[in-house]
């Protein structure tokens, strides 16, 4: 196969193949999440859906890997040389590590949908920076590059997964607090979710098990469902549960969430506005990114009732961040060593070096806040979200706005 054909193949594998597979896998997984509160046959549908989602995700990853290989062959080098390639690989690492971690290590496959959704977002973002395959500058042609770049890209992917967990944590926590507040308001008369609230005030970790276990006790407990003829108690519980779900969703004001997401994304995406050739082109990119993020946030809001406990997501965010932080540290040190060899100095406050330093400080702040008791839960999650904004902001600014020694990125 000629190089041109390979390039064409790699493009097709990327979009639409990989992109569509990820998105559909994400939605199948998310659908499976909604069946967990249903009746038995509904749950079985959920299990089947999850299998389908798993197959789609594996196909998507295969297509993505095939794309990377085809692209590598087409240009006869590792596909880690420009922004598109780096962002694409960031998505691949995020999806593979995120899914394996959830599936095999934490055994929380129900969250796969969110990781895939995040992966699809990063993948579509990479499309905004697409460039044709091509060779590298000679200074990049060394074994330092794959080492340094892949570590940082891997860390970025995992930081993205951590960002997903932090955001979900904040959504769920906000919803739970709102429901608890509604309950405790004197004279509100609301009994919504009464059985489910327990003692949210002290962080949701303690409390008493309530008897409305039908939803989560798994197949053993669900057996008394019978074959579809439901006794009134069952119906009653189900109604209560649905009311609780609705209350949770109400707990996260949609407008506030949308506006907040838009503004939060704008903290990063303004880069496209200022760096584009024409205002219209910049505005298109800016709005595309922002509105996609808003849509993702609203989808996540709808899934709030199906999320696992806040403690789970808090733990996931912490572990992933800690892991990615180590990777980031090694990657920055490797970069400093390469700079020492190639440029004759290990650190020179080049825009990307400054960016990597700021990101490091931000995530160190997150881990420090967690370690030294001061900040927990929401505080830590917000720091995690802010750190991701620093990461994406410095990444885009150092590539688009300020020219430095690292400006090899083919835009």
């Amino acid at each position: 196969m000629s190089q041109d054909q390979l390039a064409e193949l790699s493009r097709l594998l990327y979009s639409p193949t990989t992109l569509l597979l990820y998105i559909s896998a994400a939605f199948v997984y998310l659908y499976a999440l909604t069946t967990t509160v249903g009746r038995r046959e509904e749950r079985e549908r959920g299990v089947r859906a999850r299998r389908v989602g798993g197959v789609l995700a594996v196909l998507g990853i295969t297509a993505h890997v095939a794309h990377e290989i085809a692209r590598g062959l087409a240009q006869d080098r590792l596909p880690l040389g420009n922004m598109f390639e780096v962002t694409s690989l960031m998505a691949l690492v995020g999806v593979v590590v995120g899914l394996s971690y959830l599936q095999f290590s934490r055994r929380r496959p129900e969250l796969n949908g969110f990781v895939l959704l995040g992966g699809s977002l990063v993948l579509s973002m990479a499309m905004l920076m697409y460039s044709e395959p091509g060779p590298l500058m000679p200074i990049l042609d060394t074994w330092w590059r794959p080492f340094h770049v892949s570590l940082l890209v891997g860390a970025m992917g995992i930081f993205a997964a951590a960002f997903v967990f932090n955001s979900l944590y904040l959504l769920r926590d906000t919803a739970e607090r709102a429901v608890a507040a509604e309950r405790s308001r004197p004279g509100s008369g609301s009994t919504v979710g009464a059985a489910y609230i327990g003692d949210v005030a002290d962080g949701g970790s303690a409390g008493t098990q309530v008897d409305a276990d039908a939803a989560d006790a798994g197949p053993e407990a669900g057996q008394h469902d019978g074959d579809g003829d439901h006794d009134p108690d069952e119906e009653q519980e189900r109604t209560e549960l649905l009311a609780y779900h609705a209350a949770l969703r109400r707990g996260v004001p949609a407008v506030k969430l949308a506006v907040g997401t838009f503004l939060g994304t704008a903290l990063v995406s303004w880069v496209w506005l200022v760096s584009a050739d024409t205002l219209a082109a910049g505005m298109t990119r800016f709005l595309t990114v922002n509105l996609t993020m808003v849509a993702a946030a609203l989808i996540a809001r709808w899934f709030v009732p199906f999320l696992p406990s806040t403690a789970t997501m808090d733990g996931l965010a912490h572990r992933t961040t800690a892991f990615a932080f180590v990777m980031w540290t090694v990657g920055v040190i490797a970069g400093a060593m390469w700079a020492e060899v190639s440029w004759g100095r290990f650190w020179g406050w080049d825009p990307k070096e400054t960016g990597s330093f700021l990101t490091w400080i931000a995530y160190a702040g997150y881990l420090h806040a967690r370690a030294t008791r001061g900040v927990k839960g929401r505080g830590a999650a917000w720091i995690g979200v802010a750190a991701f904004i620093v990461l994406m902001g410095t990444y885009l600014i150092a590539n688009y706005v300020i020219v430095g020694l690292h400006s090899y990125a083919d835009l």
Partner: protein
Amino acid sequence: MGWRWLSRMRTALYLLAALAVMSIIATAVPQEPNVPSTVAAWRAGEEGPGVLVSQALDAIGAYDVYGSGLFLAVLLALYISLTACLIPRIKAWVRLVRHSRPPVVRHLGAQNASETFTTESRPEVVHDRAQEVLERRRWRLRRHDDEEGDKRPAQVAAEKGLWAREGGSLIFHLSFYVLLAAIVAGQLLTFEGQRGLVEGDAGFRDTAVSYWSYNPGRFFGEGDHDGWRLELERFHVDWIRDPLAPGAGQPTEFRSEVRVTPAEGEPFDAVIDSNRPLNVDGTRITQLDWGYAPRVVVEVDGEVVHDTFLTPTLATGGFFRGAVKAPAADPDLGLDIFLYPFAPDDEDGTPIPTGAPWADAPLLVFEQYRGDLRLGATQQTINQLDTDALESEGFAALRLGQSIEIGDATITFPELRHWVGYQVSSRPQVPFLLLAAAMLLGGLLASLYAYRRRLWVLATVDEVTGRTLVTVAGRAFQRPEAFEQELEDVVEELSEATGGQWQRPAGRPGDRDDPFPPSARPPAAPPAERSDRSDRTEVATR
């Protein structure tokens, strides 16, 4: 304010934030040590936000953030704050390491994890085996036997990971001192110089006077030079020349073939690549810059007044800009040189300059000046003419090997070579930087992944059956999920060693064939995955 204020975590965070803000300013505003020409242009108002803003930036030292007093003050405050925070932590850690023993308990109470099994072995034997098993796993142990009047039952108490987590965190923080020391030492002991060489010329010797730019550290004396000699034999540079190929115009190769004569020893040939600097007696030679080196001969009235290779640098537009300065002519002669490496003739024979960098059709365009070069009177670089006191005598263009007469001067362009700019640096601090990096990384790993945990092995005789009931229970201060696994491993080994009957719990909830998520679980419910094993815990703690 004061010591207590400095040692607070919050203060350290403010200082770090200040550092971050400064580095952002330094990224947005050009820095004088890096790009002095851009800063000059900002100051003059030719570029950037204008003279007024520029003055304001100057006033706050924004053109040299990393050299400003404020930056150093913040850095100093940060280090003092770090010290203030570390001293008590180190003291506490030393105390912990010296005095901590795993506590002997009266009863196990509620623990994170607990397993029980029964065995025929006597309790003392079980405790002996437990000691062996735990010792092999590098736990710190404390054996307690039954004593008269002591209400604490016979047991083996064990502890692990006590030093590693906090110790790792301390090493991580201490690495910043090593880093600082290495940087300061670097400022004092290094030397950095730049020098350009033309292919095939006589090269240069490593002495203080032979560098074009020369920045020694405070304690680097002129006698510290080794005195080797470097000659450039050939420089290879190439690009993707096919304009339709992907990455067209990108360079593919920068390589110098050099000849080195060490101060003592035989000369040898070496290659310097972008990513492969050359090491000579601990001094590093890096390629920094390159350009075409046209040889330009100027004769005035039959007398040669200039015959050297120029070292013009690449300018925007794809040409190389340089200058000929011939004060030997009377009046002074100056040539403002524009070298187009690839300017092929069109059908009419007119050269068409392109931006391509390969020297397939070099064209030397110049403007000739006569007058006063003002050498020594004004600051000027070798590639720039000061035209204030000069008068133009017109433009001309030369192909390689051609010559032209303008007035009484004859200009010849007989030869074209390359020149390469080298950076020569001596960096004794590098091993210490590596040490700092290793400490930082090692400490970080330990502080994130080491975890402190305790466990107790209690063996008692069950009055009813006569068998020995063994309880292994413990808790982890961090990473409980990793500890559960570890505890099960210990129990498995111990039950094997004592002939006990114990089976690993049948999988975690996620292992079930049909893993319904606990997602719809009420927020405050205790984790359901523990419920199937909580009965066992109760047995253990009874």
